[in-house]
């Protein structure tokens, strides 16, 4: 007979397990990146920070192309975020509010675009960008990442807008709002958490994307592309440093956006 506390304990255990699954690798990466190079060669590896040094990280950051690559990644990430919201939010709105012919096939089509392997797509894309002169620019990568992020952005924002009942907009219009005012004053505040989630998804997707970025760029590399190409021959320590540099900004971004997702009026989500 399962007692209630047994079930609660099992849930807690599962939560702890999942947290560990995510947290332990990050901890190890951070530990390795912030230790001196020698400590990494010791066997067995110490699990507690004993020999902290910023030597590895500073060497990594100073090495060629890392800081520019970091800036490129940031630029591409934010560009993807803005572009996918600019296109995705109105598209999600149309899906949520209007019935049009081909709506169902359209939604299916959006999902299917993600079914194509990015490696397969990148080569013809590189050709297109070469001919149009956009090759090896952050714009090319931004466009690619936006195309990758759009399906999920559109579908998430559509779901978000469906969650705002249409009669609230109608009520706003009865009481004096123009359609635009109704959208801004009634729909947007309620849609913000969901749209923030979509934005976050777009940014993180762009930040982590490596294959497409590698193929489409040569000198204007994004950080993952840079790390992939230069660190495959590097000593172990620098790989950890690269890993930490990749994980940290994404974590920071999520931490920032979390506020928008959890801040609902009157109903607190912990």
């Amino acid at each position, binding site marked *: 007979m399962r007692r209630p506390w047994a079930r609660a304990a099992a849930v807690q255990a599962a939560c702890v397990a999942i947290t560990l699954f995510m947290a332990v690798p990050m901890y190890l990466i951070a530990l390795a990146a912030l230790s001196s190079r020698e400590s990494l060669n010791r066997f067995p590896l110490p699990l507690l920070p004993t020999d902290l040094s910023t030597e590895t990280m500073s060497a990594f950051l100073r090495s060629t192309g890392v800081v520019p690559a970091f800036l490129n990644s940031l630029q591409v990430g934010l560009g993807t975020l803005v572009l996918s919201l600019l296109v995705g939010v109105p598209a999600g709105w149309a899906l949520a509010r209007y019935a049009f012919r081909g709506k169902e096939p359209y939604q299916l089509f959006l999902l299917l675009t993600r079914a194509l392997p990015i490696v397969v797509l990148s080569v013809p894309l590189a050709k297109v960008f070469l001919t149009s002169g956009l090759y090896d620019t952050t714009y090319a990568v931004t466009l690619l990442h936006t195309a990758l992020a759009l399906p999920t952005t559109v579908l998430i924002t559509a779901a978000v807008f469906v969650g705002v*009942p249409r*009669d*609230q907009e*109608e*009520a*706003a*219009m*009865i*009481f*004096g*709002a*123009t359609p635009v*005012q109704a959208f801004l004053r*009634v729909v947007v*505040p*309620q849609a913000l958490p969901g749209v923030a989630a979509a934005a976050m998804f777009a940014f993180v997707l762009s930040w982590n994307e490596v294959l497409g970025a590698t193929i489409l760029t040569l000198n204007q590399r994004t950080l993952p592309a840079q790390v992939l190409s230069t660190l495959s021959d590097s000593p172990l320590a620098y790989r950890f440093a690269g890993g930490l540099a990749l994980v940290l900004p994404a974590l920071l971004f999520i931490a920032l956006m979390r506020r928008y997702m959890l801040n609902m*009026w*009157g*109903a607190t989500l912990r």
Partner: protein
Amino acid sequence: MAEVVVRNLVKTYAASAHRATDDVSLEVADGEFVVLVGPSGCGKTTLLRMVAGLETPDSGTVHIGGRDVTGLPARQRRVSMVFQSYAIFPHMRVRQNIGFGLAMRKVDRQELERRVQRAAELLQLEDYLDRFPAQLSGGQRQRVAVARAIVVDADVLLMDEPLSNLDALLRLQFRTELKKLVRQLGTTTLYVTHDQAEAMSLGDRVAVMRDGRIAQIGTPLAVYDRPDEQFVGGFLGAPPMNFFPAQVRLRGADPQLVVGEDTWPAPAHLKAYADRSVLVGVRAENIQVTADPPATGPGAQPGWSAAVVEVVEPTGAAVLLTVRLDEHQLKVQAPPGFPARPDDTVWLRSAPEMLRFFDPETSLALVTT
């Protein structure tokens, strides 16, 4: 404060073949409370939304206060609306919700607060002004929706089934409060409901709608007591009006109704319909019922028919009997405590002036002169 004049409104939704409103015309006098009632799909909500400006008619006009508003968007019509689902804004406090209409019209801050306070008092919401809708009960949210609608002092107040989402007890309580409130404000009101009891209790006039048309419009008692067609009689009243066929025969100069094997006295005006079948309509509360066989012979009251009891439903205030007269099922309202059990025989009679007559083919009430 204004009158509403609707002329020949036609609306067909893209997806369907038949008209949602079929050439509907309606006049609501200044300060009048008119209720649109009818089964689902009869067009009452469509009509209301066209008056509100949320739907555009295919043809026809809407005038509010003498002004042609047919082409105007909702915000320019000086109307107010309460929605079935309340449609209050969850991201704003009650205070901002109520004051929304005033804020949109850029009303001065002090004036806005004063009016919001007054509306909140009218609806007993003073203690909840700083809460969010998520922290309110369904009934309280309903009050917020009504407060928001009355605070703007619109010309016309529109309500789309505002009580439907409340539980039965709250619905009754709020119905009374709403009637009192609207009477106090004196605003011209157009109210939509599918609940016929609500319609009868609230409206100065009731418009019964079916299939996009107004079947009958009149005071609650007029539409209840003298339905123009079978549908109206069958829609209003709980239980609905009973209908059964009968033949009109002349005995000498007086008309009589032949119901099955019995003869009932008929009102004099039926003389014009001698030797024809008619559809008789009579309400459950207008049928006399007795468990003892009536006296026969000279001087006895004529017009009793025997019927077999099928179901007995004691409702507390009365006993609702479902009886079978020949092959017709009738609902009869008996006094509380009436001694009847299923399969008992009871005797029914109805005074001629309580009977209503309809043409069996057209279902329209017979012209009585």
